[in-house]
C-alpha cells in the first residue's frame, strides 16, 4: 500500500521536498543541541521546560482529539464519520510521532532514554505517559492500517481489530489525562495543581483536534478527489463548539477559585499571564489574544448561520486552533513556571534554534501526515472508482 506514497503529482513532491528541507535544517541545529547541550534553548533554571514540552502537550491534545471521530463511528455507529475516521486515526499517528520527537528533543541525555524501560518506575507519571503514548500510537497505526487495507481490498477488517478499536478509546482519553497528571500532581506549582486540569486538557483537546481535522478535510477536498462530506464536517464543528465552551468554562471556574480564594501561590501565575508581574509581562498580549480568539470562535460556532457557512468555518477553525495553541502551550507551560516556587520571575522566550528544531519536528509530522493522508484518500478514491 505504501507504494501509493511514492507516486504523486509535482505539487506533492514540491511539498515533500519543502518539508524535507526544513527537516534537514532542523536536524543540523539539533546536532548542535546534541553536541553542546540544551544551552542553545531559552530554558533556564527556573523555567526548565519550554517550547518543546509546550508543543508536546498541545499535540497530545490533537492526537486525543482524533477519538472524537472514533467514538461516534465505532460506539454509536454514526455513519457520517465513516469516511473521516481513518483521517482522525492518521492524524493521531502523526501527532503522536511529533509528541515523541518533542520529548526526545527535550531530553538532556537522549542516548540514555531507554533507561525508562530498563528501570520502569510506576510512581512516575512520565513512565505512564510513555506507556500510553506508545500504546496509543501502536494502536492507531495497526487499526488505521488494517482497516484501510481491508477497505482497499473490499473485505471485512480482521476480527481482532474490533477489540483494539475499543481499547484505543480509553487510551485516547488516557494519553491526555496522564499528560495532565504530569503537571497537576506537583506540589508547589499552584497554577497546575488543580483537579480540573485533566478535564480542561481534554476539553481543549476535543476543540483543537477536531478543528484541525476540519481544516484537513478542507485541504483534502481541495487537493484530492476525495470528499470527506459536509455533514461530517458539520458534526465535527458542533463537537468543536461544545468542547471549546467547556474549555473556556473550565478556565473561568479556575479563575473564580483562584481570585475568590485569593491564595497568592495560585493567583500570581494567572496574574502574570494576564496582567504581568513585577513589571514582567511578555505573555500578556498573547493570553488576551488567545481569549479573544476562543471567544470569537465560540461566537462563530454557536450561531448556526456562521457555523453552516462553508467559507467562514475554516477561518473559525484557524482562530480556534491558534487560540487553543496559545492557551495550552504558551500559557500552560510558562504560566506554571512563572513565578518560580521561590517567587522569582524569570521570563522565558524560546530561542531561534529552539523554534527551528520545533519546526523540524512539525515538518516531520506534516510529512508523515501528508503521506498517510495520501494513502487514505487515494485508497478511498480507488475504492469509489
Amino acid at each position, binding site marked *: 500500500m505504501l507504494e501509493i506514497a511514492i507516486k504523486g503529482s509535482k505539487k506533492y513532491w514540491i511539498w515533500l521536498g519543502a518539508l524535507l528541507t526544513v527537516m534537514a535544517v532542523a536536524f543540523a541545529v539539533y546536532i548542535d543541541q546534541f553536541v553542546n547541550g540544551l544551552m542553545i534553548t531559552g530554558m533556564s533554571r527556573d523555567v526548565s521546560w519550554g517550547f518543546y514540552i509546550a508543543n508536546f502537550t498541545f499535540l497530545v491534545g490533537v492526537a486525543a482529539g482524533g477519538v472524537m471521530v472514533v467514538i461516534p463511528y465505532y460506539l454509536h455507529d454514526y455513519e457520517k464519520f465513516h469516511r473521516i475516521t481513518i483521517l482522525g486515526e492518521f492524524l493521531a499517528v502523526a501527532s503522536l510521532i511529533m509528541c515523541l520527537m518533542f520529548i526526545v528533543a527535550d531530553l538532556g541525555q537522549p542516548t540514555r532514554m531507554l533507561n525508562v524501560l530498563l528501570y520502569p518506575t510506576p510512581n512516575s507519571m512520565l513512565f505512564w505517559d510513555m506507556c500510553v503514548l506508545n500504546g496509543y500510537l501502536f494502536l492507531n497505526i495497526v487499526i488505521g492500517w488494517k482497516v484501510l487495507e481491508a477497505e482497499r481490498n*473490499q473485505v471485512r477488517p480482521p476480527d481482532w481489530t474490533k477489540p483494539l478499536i475499543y481499547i484505543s478509546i480509553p487510551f485516547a482519553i488516557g494519553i491526555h489525562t496522564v499528560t495532565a497528571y504530569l503537571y497537576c500532581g506537583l506540589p508547589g506549582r499552584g497554577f497546575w495543581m488543580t483537579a480540573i486540569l485533566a478535564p480542561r486538557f481534554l476539553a481543549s483537546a476535543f476543540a483543537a483536534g477536531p478543528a484541525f481535522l476540519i481544516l484537513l478535510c478542507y485541504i483534502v477536498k481541495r487537493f484530492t478527489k476525495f470528499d470527506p462530506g459536509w455533514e461530517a464536517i458539520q458534526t465535527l464543528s458542533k463537537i468543536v463548539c461544545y468542547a471549546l465552551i467547556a474549555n473556556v468554562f473550565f478556565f473561568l471556574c479556575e479563575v473564580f477559585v483562584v481570585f475568590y480564594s485569593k491564595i497568592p501561590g495560585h493567583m500570581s501565575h494567572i496574574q502574570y499571564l494576564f496582567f504581568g508581574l513585577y513589571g514582567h509581562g511578555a505573555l500578556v498580549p498573547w493570553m488576551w489574544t488567545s481569549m479573544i480568539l476562543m471567544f470569537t470562535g465560540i461566537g462563530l460556532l454557536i450561531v448556526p448561520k456562521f457555523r453552516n457557512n462553508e467559507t467562514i468555518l475554516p477561518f473559525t477553525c484557524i482562530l480556534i486552533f491558534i487560540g487553543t495553541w496559545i492557551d495550552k502551550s504558551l500559557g500552560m507551560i510558562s504560566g506554571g513556571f512563572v513565578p518560580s516556587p521561590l517567587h522569582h520571575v524569570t521570563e522565558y522566550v524560546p530561542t531561534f534554534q529552539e523554534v527551528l528544531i520545533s519546526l523540524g519536528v512539525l515538518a516531520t509530522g506534516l510529512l508523515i501526515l501528508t503521506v498517510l493522508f495520501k494513502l487514505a484518500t487515494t485508497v478511498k478514491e480507488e475504492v469509489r*472508482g
Partner: protein
Amino acid sequence: MSDELKPDELLNKIDHKPDGGDWMDTPVQIRPGMYCYAAKAESVKTLGLPNARPWNPAEDDWKLPENWQEIIHNGIKERLERFRTFKVFMDICVRCGACADKCHFFLGTGDPKNMPVLRAELLRSVYRNDFTRAAKLLKFLPGGEFLAGGRPMTMDVLKEWWYYFFQCTECRRCSVFCPYGIDTAEITIMGRELLNLLGLNIDWIATPVSNCYQTGNHLGIQPHAFKDMLEFFTEDIEEITGVNVEPQFNKKGADILFITPSGDVFADPGTYTCQGYLILFKYLKDKYGLDVTWSTYASEGGNFGFFTSHETMKRLNAKMYAEARRLGVKWILGGECGHMWRVIHQYMDTMNGPADFLEEPVNPITGTKFENAKSTKMVHITEFTADLIKHGKLELDKSRNANRIMTYHDSCNTSRGMGLLEEPRYVLKNVCDNFFEMPENTIREQTFCCGSGSGLNAGENIELRMAGGLPRANAVKYVHEKFGVNTLGTICAIDRAALSTLMEYWVPEVEVCGIHELVGNALILPGEHDREMDLRMEPLPGKEDIDE
C-alpha cells in the same frame, strides 16, 4: 466442463496452507483435469524432434529411451553453459518465499508445488545433486547429503517435472517480486526443453507447432481458407458499414506487412478484433493511402515453438523476417497478441536478425519514428494506433461503444515481458468512455495470467485452467459487481479465447473483446452508412428498438 466441477466446489478445494511433510517425499499424482494429453507422435515427427511415439501420461510406462537419465543430465549441462540465467537461478535462490503466493496456479489450486520456488526446486534439487561441488563435498560429512538438499533424477522426478512444468504459464509474475529477479518462466522453459529431449511434450503445443511449421499457422489453415475467412469478415463489415474493406494478401512492395495470431482469424471473439484491423487498414488506405498487406505464409503471429524449445521457436519465427524480405515491405506491424510479442521483443532480432533489409519503422501518416523498434523493425499495433489517435488522424465515434463498460486485462507477456501498459489504455480510453481499472495488485506489472497461457489452453485440463484463472476472474468479478463492468478488454489472442471460457465459468455476465474491436466500432469509415450494429452484429447503443 462446468458440470464436472462447480465454481463453489473448486473454491472449497483451495487451501493455501500446505500441511507438513517433505515435498521431496510427496510423489506426484497426475490427476485428470489438471494435465494436457501427450503429444501425438506424428506432430513430433514433422519437426524431427526426438522420441516420437504414442504414449500416455496416465500410464506407468512413458516409453522413454534407455539412456534417458543421461540425456537429461547432458541436457542440463549444455543449458548451464548456454544460459547464465539458468545457472544463476539454480544457484542463488534463498527460498525466502516472497514468490509463493504470487502464482495464479498456487492461488487457484493451493497445490504447494505450484509455488514458483518449489516448481524451480523440482529442477534445482536435481541440479544440486548432480552438478554442485557442495553436494560432492558434503557427501563425506554425516548428514551432509541432507544439508545439500539434492535428489537423484528418477522416474518420479521426471513425472513431477512434466506435470508441473506444464502447470506453469510462464507469466513471470513471481519474477516481479523475487529479490534476485529469478524468472520461473525461464526455468520452466528449460524444464520443457529438457522434457522435449525425451519427446515429452503435450499435444496442445506439439500439434499447433507442427501445423505452423507446415501450413504457416497453428490451426493449420491453408492459404485459400485463410483468404476465405477474411473475405467472410469483409462481407460482414460491408453489411454493418456499407463499405468494402477488402484486404490484400502476399502483396509485394506494400508499405507494411501485418502479422497477427491466427486465433484472430478463426476464433471468436478474436474475429471481431480481426474485423477491427480490417476497418482500420481500410480507413488508412482510403484516407492516407497506406498500403498494408497480409501474408498467408507468415499467417501466424503466435509461436508455440516458444513453449517447446528455443530451437523450435526460432524455426517458426524465421518466417516473419523471411516473408517481409520476400515481399519487400518497409517494416512489420504486429497484431494484438501476448507471447507473440514476447518472442518478437526479446528473441526475434537476436535469433533471426539482423533485419537490415527493412527500414527503421516510421509511421508514414504522422511521421513518428518508432525509436523503440529501431532494430527489430516491428511495431505493436497499439503503439501504431495510439500514435494515430494522438495526432488526430482517426475519426472516432465513442458513443458506438457506450454500452461497453470496460476494464482492461494486461497480458502477462506484454506487461512483464516488454512493458506495454499505457498504449492500449490510451487507445481504449479514446474509443470508449466507460473504463474502470481492476484492483491495483492485479494489473500492469502485477497482472494475473488468464490461466491458459504458454500452450495450456486445452479442453482436457479445464480444472487447471479455471483454477489458474481464478485470481484474474476474481478481480474482474470485483469490478463487475462494483462498477457494472460488462466487458473485459485485452490485447492477447490466447486471452480472448481463454478469458471467454474463464468468464463464462466465474463471471458469466462479462464478455471479452480485443482493443481493436472497439476501434473498429468507433472508427468512422469514409462513405459508411449509418451503422446500426456493432461488429458482433448486435444493435448499437440507442439503436436497440429499431430491430424490434
